[in-house]
């Protein structure tokens, strides 16, 4: 141990620490400054960026002893330039989940010290060492430019905050102050620190040696737990009928990274040591290719052909219609495992509150966590309380439980508080991925360019356990046609088990992979038919009253409007491409559309919202829609404010804590704005009706709330004189909304979703034909959101989804054992996302709150196929395998598709 004295945010501090302890650890654990985030412990993500004597450093790579005598500044620092940056970040919507925000702010602070008013290239370069997975960087870059130019000083003006306003993120203040508390940021001292023992093999049998002897030989290790210690059902899964994943494996590990044992160490600051853990592995043959797995040994005995499920949609006679078509194209695509790569690895803490097991962790689905964790632990659900932390990105993977049952097991068994923080690699190896897809399809049209039929067959590698595999298999055939009239359809998607990582939910549930196939076929078919690619899509775009492939009558259909909004940009971009010199660098333009059904596929999907008024005049919104950065805290409040008739500033939010707020469902399937928003609108209208009745005021009364006095032009109600209910509310309303859907029959016919959202994106790029490198120039994105509740948040979703689409198209390839960190697994940096122009289209849907539709997933779907179509436009080559790494593109240009 060494005593290290340094200046921290202007004040002298002294810490006693191991000299080479990471500075990030010292700041977080010893100094209590958890604003410095740890995303990788390897210098790959920059989340832990701090200033040491004014220079940006990764605190995770800095030995504590080295800051002796130095001046260290963290995101918590009081500093006028940092304040200007914070205000600009808020105003621009530059913080979404907020986990990268401290690193971004500090990197920007260092830049502004060097150069007071930097330009965009300098900002991109200075922030190039900090990864963000939510924003697509555009708003961050704009905020830094703005702060550099002197903007951002004024206090942000929080307006009425009704529907359609650019209300500043209501939970944004703590995110830019570094005081938001994520999964790793709150724990009880003196507890246990958990580490999992994980399988190094994709498939292996295992047996434990002498666990007691190993434990006894390690003073810091307090307990070892295995599957034998699990009191309840050792099988979880987001879809109960398919629950098959053990919290701790029993005798066989089915994928690399699967947890097989759990060790609880005394949480005293020492390094947990799992060396020589007594386990004997017998490696078994691993199935990695789903095509092989169909005929291979069964991974789960009850699933013949290793098939988890199959989704199927049939309408008309696709085979006959294709045979009779004037033009037919066919193709094949292969996509990779894609890692969610949120900057916050899974983390949480647990403790007992009397009889109640409390688990605070990052999640997208608190009630599902509660029920699955309770089942594993053999507890009734009401003995488990889930408190969601701030969530540092989710994108689908944090719908599945991770640390929750492990924390619960230890705290329940020992009675002691516990915490668990996944390392970056642990997060990558053990949590879900986007399904790799292998898709073949044929698409036909008549001589006038009207689509006749689609025949689509996809195999989705669903990995070792079920997770959201059934959802992907069911969603894909429904969406396989894209938002186009397709009279004859045969679409099949099979989810096949392998010994790969568990494939689950990832922004779009398989639809982005399907769109790569379908939208690239559209370009080729348009060319065959001799029709402009945008006009070809417009000609076939679904309109109100058309039938979808599932036989659903479409309404509030926005694709036509999106494509129309793009048309002038398309014309301009084609002209620019045609005018570009035809040298080694070739310019191309591509286009792709999307549609996406909001909420569960043909399954109940309710959200409940409660709003109450206390005698003191506190207006409490039980906002149960977990905000993982997408903005539901703000959007749901805006909807409630508009419907109730009081400004957003009057609301106090109570989050999705299972002990405090009713179930607003999971944050997935682009459902929160639509489904929970609709419940919020209903609850607010009910409360308003109660108020109007009580005051005997007219429907158009303008409400005010001043302390306990609830007023209108015609009088006031003194809330303090009203009786309170058991929850302490004098007036309250609770409403539930469940989208009207129907089941799909054997041919996939029915009404799987009540509301669809639409979009179309145009990509302009150049291809360096000597190296196969793609440079994106601009992306123009038109999205029909029904009603933009908050245009800034809409743009944030569009930009962030596009960035993930860029990654999927050009660089992201998760390979177990090879790319299990953020320097081998590449996600886009500031320099990889081009300027994005958002065109917000509003075709109001009668089911949506104020007409709003979902957006979160739609925004990713068109990006990859639009990039591929632009590459083909530039070079004539269409690589069939994602990601389009430089060597693959060069090979495709030579006709050797790798």
């Amino acid at each position, binding site marked *: 141990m060494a005593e290290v004295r340094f200046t921290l945010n202007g004040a002298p501090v002294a810490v006693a620490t191991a000299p080479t302890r990471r500075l990030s650890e010292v700041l977080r654990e010893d100094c209590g400054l958890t604003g410095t985030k740890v995303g990788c412990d390897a210098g790959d993500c920059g989340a832990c960026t701090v200033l040491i004597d004014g220079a940006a450093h990764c605190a995770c790579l*800095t030995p504590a*002893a080295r800051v002796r005598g130095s001046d260290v500044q963290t995101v918590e620092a009081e500093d006028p330039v940092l304040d200007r940056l914070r205000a600009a970040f808020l105003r621009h919507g530059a913080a979404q989940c907020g986990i990268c925000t401290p690193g971004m702010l500090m990197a920007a602070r260092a830049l502004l010290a060097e150069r007071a008013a930097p330009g965009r290239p300098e900002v991109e370069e200075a922030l190039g060492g900090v990864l963000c997975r939510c924003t697509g960087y555009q708003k961050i870059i704009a905020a830094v430019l703005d702060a550099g130019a002197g903007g951002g000083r004024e206090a942000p003006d929080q307006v009425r905050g009704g529907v359609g306003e650019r209300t500043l993120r209501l939970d944004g203040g703590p995110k830019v102050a570094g005081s938001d508390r994520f999964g790793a940021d709150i724990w009880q001292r003196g507890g246990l620190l958990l580490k999992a023992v994980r399988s190094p093999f994709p498939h292996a049998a295992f047996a434990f040696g002498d666990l007691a002897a190993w434990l006894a030989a390690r003073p810091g290790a307090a307990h070892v737990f295995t599957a034998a210690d699990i009191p309840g059902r050792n099988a979880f899964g987001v879809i109960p009928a398919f629950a098959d994943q053990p919290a701790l494996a029993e005798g066989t590990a089915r994928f690399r990274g699967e947890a097989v044992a759990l060790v609880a160490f005394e949480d005293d600051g020492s390094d947990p040591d799992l060396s020589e853990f007594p386990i004997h592995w017998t490696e078994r043959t691993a199935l990695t290719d789903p095509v092989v797995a169909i005929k291979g040994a069964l991974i789960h005995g009850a699933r013949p052909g290793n098939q988890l499920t199959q989704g199927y949609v049939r309408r008309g006679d696709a085979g006959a219609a294709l045979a009779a078509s004037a033009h037919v194209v066919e193709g094949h695509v292969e996509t990779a495992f894609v890692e969610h790569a949120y900057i916050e690895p899974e983390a949480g803490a647990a403790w007992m509150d009397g009889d109640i097991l409390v688990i605070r962790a990052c999640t997208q689905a608190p009630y599902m966590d509660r029920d699955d964790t309770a089942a594993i632990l053999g507890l009734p659900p009401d003995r488990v309380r889930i408190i969601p932390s701030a969530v540092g990105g989710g994108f689908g993977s944090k719908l599945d439980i991770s640390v929750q049952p492990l924390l619960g097991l230890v705290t329940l068994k020992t009675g002691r508080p516990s915490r668990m923080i996944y390392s970056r690699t642990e997060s990558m190896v053990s949590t879900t991925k986007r399904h790799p897809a292998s898709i073949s399809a044929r698409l036909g049209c008549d001589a006038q360019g009207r689509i006749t039929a689609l025949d689509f067959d996809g195999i989705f590698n669903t990995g070792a356990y079920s997770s959201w595999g059934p959802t992907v298999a069911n969603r894909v055939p429904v969406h396989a046609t894209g938002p186009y009239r397709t009279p004859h359809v045969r679409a099949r998607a099979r989810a096949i088990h392998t010994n790969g990582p568990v494939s689950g939910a990832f922004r779009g549930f398989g639809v982005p992979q399907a769109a790569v196939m379908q939208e690239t076929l559209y370009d080729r078919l348009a060319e065959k038919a001799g029709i402009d690619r945008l006009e070809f899509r417009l000609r076939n775009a679904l309109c109100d009253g058309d039938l979808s492939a599932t036989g659903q009558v479409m309404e509030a259909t926005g694709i036509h409007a999106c494509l129309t909004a793009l048309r002038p940009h398309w014309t301009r971009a084609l002209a620019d491409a045609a005018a570009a010199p035809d040298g080694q660098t070739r310019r191309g333009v591509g286009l792709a559309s999307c549609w996406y059904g909001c909420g569960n596929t043909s399954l109940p999907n309710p959200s409940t919202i409660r709003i109450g008024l206390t005698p003191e005049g506190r207006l409490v919104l039980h906002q149960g829609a977990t905000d993982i950065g997408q903005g539901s805290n703000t959007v749901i409040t805006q909807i409630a404010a508009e419907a109730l008739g009081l400004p957003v500033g009057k609301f106090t939010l109570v989050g999705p804590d299972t002990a405090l707020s009713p179930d607003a469902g999971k944050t997935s399937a682009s459902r929160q704005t639509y489904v929970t928003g609709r419940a919020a609108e209903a609850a607010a209208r009910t409360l308003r009706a109660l108020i109007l009745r009580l005051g005997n005021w007219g429907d158009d009364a303008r409400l005010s709330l001043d302390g306990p006095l609830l007023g209108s032009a015609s009088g006031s109600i003194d809330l303090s004189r009203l009786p309170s209910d058991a929850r302490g509310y004098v007036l309250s309303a609770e409403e539930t909304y469940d989208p009207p859907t129907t089941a799909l029959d054997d041919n996939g016919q029915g009404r799987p979703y009540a509301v669809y959202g639409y979009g179309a994106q145009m990509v302009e790029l150049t291809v360096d034909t000597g190296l196969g490198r793609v440079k994106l120039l601009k992306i123009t994105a038109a999205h029909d959101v029904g009603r933009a509740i908050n245009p800034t948040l809409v743009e944030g979703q569009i930009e962030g989804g596009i960035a993930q689409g860029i990654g999927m198209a050009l660089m992201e390839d998760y390979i177990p054992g090879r790319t299990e960190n953020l320097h081998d697994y590449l996600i886009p940096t500031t320099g990889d996302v081009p300027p994005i122009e958002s065109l917000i289209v509003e075709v109001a849907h009668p089911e949506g709150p104020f007409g709003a539709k979902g957006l979160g997933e739609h925004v990713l779907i068109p990006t990859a196929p639009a990039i591929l179509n632009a590459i083909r436009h530039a070079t004539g080559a269409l690589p069939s395998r994602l990601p389009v790494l*430089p060597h693959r593109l060069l090979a495709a240009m030579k006709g050797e598709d790798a």
Partner: protein
Amino acid sequence: MAGEAAYERPESLTGALQLLARGGWTPLAGGTDLYPATGGRSLGGNILDLSAIEDLSGIISGRDGLRIGAGTTWAEIATARLPPALAALQEAAREVGGRQIQNAGTIGGNLCNASPAADGVPPLLALEAEVELASQAGVRRLALGDFITGPRRTARASGELLVAVQIPRPALMGRSHFLKLGARKYLVISIASVAVRLLEREGRIALARIAVGSCAPVARRLPAVEAALEGAALAGAAGQVRASDVAAALSPIDDVRATAAYRLEAATELVRRTVGALAGGPHG
């Protein structure tokens, strides 16, 4: 256990070498490679922190040439005023990770880590750099090509420290350029990287030094390409770069970033472009 490990941060080279002579120490420079390699909260083993040794940092011009202290950071190299021959090294310095890594990572650490993809190595090979190794027994100099003996392997003995990189005076002549190819813009391990230094005389290339990274177990000079360029007219020199001459010096592998065949093709293309950029105009 890491908690029992020793840590020393000597202020003099003599002190460091004394400690090192006793054996069992891992030298710590910028930390940008050692920390990612541990899953722990602190580094394991006995750590000899070199960051307080004044003699190891800074760039000094002397009679023999330019001496770059091993502890000089990439940020210091990127912003130093250096002759045009070192432009490639400065360009590489701006491509080593992000700013945070450039502020911590050192040239000596980069060389001792001996990654086949180290950005700093091709420019230094093109500068015919030598490394200075010190031990209690004395000081020795090795050509950089002899120092890095394989992936993650160097000729540094356990009692030695790499104290400086020496650029011989003649190698400070000419102009240089660096190009790096990766699948994304920042923070990327290169698929291939190229450094070229040319000395021109009366419109002709009097001397060419060319090195390629990420295309062999260690970064390699391209002697056949250098020979083909020397004496050639500067204008159009890129046309003298033959793929077979590039391939002769390289032995790339297939990995997650690219195929071996692609690497060879890309290396040739990058060499042509780098030469072309120095010659002026597309491909000179």
